[in-house]
């Protein structure tokens, strides 16, 4: 695994190899709760990415000052402060956007992607790498939420981002808007992601075996 230490990999690993939703199974609570419509998914992912980038960067800067025993408490204080600051600034300067995102902001504090990256990455790596890692994880989160919310919005109301996609009169599955629909869709997505990884690994193995036999 030579690519592990490359700088570009710090960003790219969040997109698939260590995708926070599909591979690390982090941040399930907001994922299941907000993906009823695509616009909600995008809003949540952007707000989370914003907090993730800033808290990862800051935690990485002060990582050497924090004693091991109180690291989690320190991270939480930093993250909660950022979330509150974002909330206040948005309510003061962009009341319209705040109305749209309002209910999501407090949810970010408990999003374990942020604490997970602070603990798993930012506390062990330099600020620049942490920044790339946070951006990558945020993008991976955005992609997963987009896929999940598109499926749910399409099946529950026949629209994507409010535009009619399926012909009017197509039966609408109310279950997709309810928590059960979220679990079912997410489970199938996990299955698809694992199947893809499995098939790819098997192909790689076959290539190695045929090479070995040929020599």
């Amino acid at each position, binding site marked *: 695994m030579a690519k592990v230490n490359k700088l570009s990999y710090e960003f790219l690993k969040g997109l698939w190899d260590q995708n926070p939703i599909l591979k690390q199974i982090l941040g399930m609570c907001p994922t299941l709760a907000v993906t009823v419509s695509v616009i909600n998914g995008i809003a949540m992912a952007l707000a989370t990415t914003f907090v993730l980038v800033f808290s990862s960067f800051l935690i990485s800067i002060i990582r050497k000052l924090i004693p091991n025993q109180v690291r989690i408490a*320190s991270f939480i204080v930093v993250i*909660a*402060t950022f979330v509150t600051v974002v909330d206040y600034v948005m*309510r*003061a*300067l962009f009341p319209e956007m705040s109305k749209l995102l309002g*209910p999501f902001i407090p949810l970010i504090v408990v999003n374990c992607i942020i604490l997970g990256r602070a603990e798993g990455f930012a506390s062990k790596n330099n600020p620049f790498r942490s920044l790339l890692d946070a951006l990558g994880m945020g993008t991976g989160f955005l992609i997963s939420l987009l896929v999940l919310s598109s499926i749910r919005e399409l099946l529950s109301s026949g629209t994507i981002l409010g535009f009619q996609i399926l012909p009017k009169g197509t039966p609408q599955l*109310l279950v997709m808007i309810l928590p059960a629909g979220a679990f079912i869709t997410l489970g199938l997505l996990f299955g698809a992601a694992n199947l893809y990884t499995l098939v790819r690994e098997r192909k790689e193995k076959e290539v190695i075996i045929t090479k070995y036999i040929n020599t």
Partner: protein
Amino acid sequence: MKTIIQMVVVLTVISIISAIALSEISSWANPKIAQNRAKETEKAIFRVQPKAKSYKKINQSGLELFQVFDENNKPLGYVLTYEGNGFQGKIRLIVGLNDSLNVISRVEILEQVETPGLGNKITEEPFLKQFENLLTIPEIEWVKGSKPTKPNQIQTITAATISSKSVVQILNEGISKLKDLKQKGLL
């Protein structure tokens, strides 16, 4: 011993910095937020009383209450903002009523933190439309899963019954306070 002191010092310093940052932000943002809120309320007054041309604030028992007038300065009715508990937190709404407080002209939700995608449908038109020209006597009622049959009933949103019920409860509470004031001749 050294680590214990370090632990205490680091955590205290981080908390102090965080507290200073938050109190600074809050004292900077709060007046702006209040301003936004007042502006929004003013806009909402004319949305829930579409025929109104001017309004006057009424200071009565701590309520945020306005009397509205038409173009001939004839009183049209009242606008009340009122808040109460929803499913997850406070719901703040604004309601327009006629002069005798028995018909609603329109309701709008000003602030809410209901579940995105489910409870927050109370801010959407299909739900709010039900309140237009709704009777408030004896009080507003809700029905679940079927179309309303009486002129004082609304239908709750599927999968968001509690949020829908909360809106009805908040309205009933606010309106009954107004009716009390009216009876005492204070309005």
